[in-house]
């Protein structure tokens, strides 16, 4: 019996992208395997969108992007036989009705799964005859999710998918993805500002800043590697001696995310979340992540 070769996922080697003279991506090299949920975190303008658009063939680039060992070529639609993309809630065509949108996506996609689609339609409560333009943001997201998750693809790229949605919808969004799409043969890359809501589902994380990859690591290992250290204000020099990129001061205490190997007598230690770790690695304020 012929043995099936395992899929190698996305392999990115020495990726560079210029907009005129501005370098948006600088020598990016990454391996994104199947069966993982990976977060792409970075400040505004860090290069998250550009990286995703290069991975989809939307942008010309220098360097190599391979998907299961096949190179991604600029504007080659073949990539969409394996990858689905959700840009943001405003990405649907508001001239079509809900039914027309579903019919269109179904008929142009050979990998449309009618069984999943029927199931998602039945639980979605979407008004089929209504124009997309007249749907609420939440309904639009539901529709985008429906047409995306009804495709038998192996990779899902999400770019700020829950921007502008309320908490209930955001939670429902990620629950649906985990419930209806993800398994060990599939991969998800999520770029989001709202780190805290995906923190629990991420298995790996990539930090990107000014077009460079700062870090690509397993989330659990990363959280073991860093911790929040708090000391009274008068002992602030002890923390500042380690040159943390981000410190916070409140109620007479100074706190910073530092390497877990560092010990301070009488210090309080806390578990760092991804946003804290990002700021410790990239610098900046909480608002920027």
């Amino acid at each position, binding site marked *: 019996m012929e043995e099936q070769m395992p899929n190698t996922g996305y392999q990115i080697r020495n990726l560079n992208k210029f907009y005129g003279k501005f370098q948006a991506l600088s020598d990016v090299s990454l391996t994104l395997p199947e069966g993982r949920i990976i977060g792409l975190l970075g400040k505004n303008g860090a290069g998250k969108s550009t990286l995703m658009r290069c991975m989809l063939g939307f942008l010309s680039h220098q360097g190599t992007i391979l998907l299961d060992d096949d190179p991604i070529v600029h504007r080659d639609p073949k990539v969409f036989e394996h990858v689905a993309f959700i840009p943001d809630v405003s*990405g649907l065509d508001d001239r079509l009705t809900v039914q027309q949108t579903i019919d269109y996506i179904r008929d142009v996609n050979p990998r449309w799964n009618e069984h999943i689609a029927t199931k998602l339609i039945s639980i979605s409560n979407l008004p089929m005859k209504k124009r997309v333009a007249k749907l609420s943001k939440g309904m639009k997201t539901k529709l985008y999710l429906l047409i995306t998750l009804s495709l038998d693809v192996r990779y899902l790229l999400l770019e700020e998918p829950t921007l502008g949605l309320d908490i209930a919808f955001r939670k429902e969004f990620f629950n649906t993805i985990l419930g209806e799409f993800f398994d060990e043969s599939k991969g998800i890359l999520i770029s989001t500002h709202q780190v805290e809501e995906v923190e629990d589902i991420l298995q790996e994380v990539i930090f990107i800043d000014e077009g460079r990859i700062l870090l690509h690591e397993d989330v659990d290992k990363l959280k073991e590697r860093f911790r929040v250290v708090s000391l009274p204000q008068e002992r602030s020099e002890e923390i500042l001696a380690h040159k943390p990129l981000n410190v916070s001061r409140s109620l007479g205490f100074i706190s910073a995310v530092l390497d877990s190997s560092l010990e301070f007598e009488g210090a309080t230690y806390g578990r760092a979340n991804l946003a804290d770790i990002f700021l410790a690695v990239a610098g900046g304020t909480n608002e920027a992540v």
Partner: protein
Amino acid sequence: MKQFRALIRKEWQTHRGTILIPLWFTGAVYVIGILGLMINFIREGRLTIVTGGMKVSAMEASVGLYGVSFAMLMMLGMVSIITAIILADGMINGAFKRKCEILHLSQPVSMLKVLGAKYALLVLGTFALSAALSLVNSFVLSGLLNIWMPVHTYYAMVAWAQGSVGMLLSLLVVASYYWLSAALFKRKSFFMGTLVILGIEIAIAVLNYTGKLGIPSLMDYIAKLIGIQVHIEPHGMNALGLNLDDLIALQWKSVISWLTLQKLVLSAVFVAGGYWFYSRRELT
């Protein structure tokens, strides 16, 4: 084929309003015409036609029918061309302007199919609708004229057939040029495309004035490309010893010409250029 049908259907659903402009225009003309006839009927108590007191021979009536059918088709042709110009920009840049380009271009469909569906509906859709409306118009016109004078519907049909060929060729050239322009310019493509023509024309005029180069005018050439030449004038025809059938034969012969070939080649170049530019766009 399923993908192509889906793309055509989507283009129809998203541009139906524009594609149907010739239908709305024809409808408006009919409403005005019917209103005119009703007013006439109310005033005169019967349907009349103004012939200036002249006696119209069967030959002259047929020439009139041929000419009026042709003129009506040309008018609709103009509307179709304007429709095609609007559509070219809408089909190429509409999704970009509405921020849904990524949805449409993140489907596993070849660029050839995506653009093929757009172009097919742009040219063939617009043409088919206008040709069908013109056919109806020709029947209605010959039927109406038959109330007052003996005319042969055959001549209305020939005018429709010949005019349709001419309209298709003109539509092809103009739609393809603005298709290229839309692929080149994401915004204000009509304005930019027209500006390019004007720019070239001004450059030619300057070169001719300063260097006495005698370069032919681009505008004249464009007028030749999109115009449909036809001479229908009963007295002139009589002087030349031509009858309407001779004129029809001459008109058919003019279809197979060097100019027609130029129209086809230029259209193909514009379409290929549009494909080249559009498929190299970056989706930011």
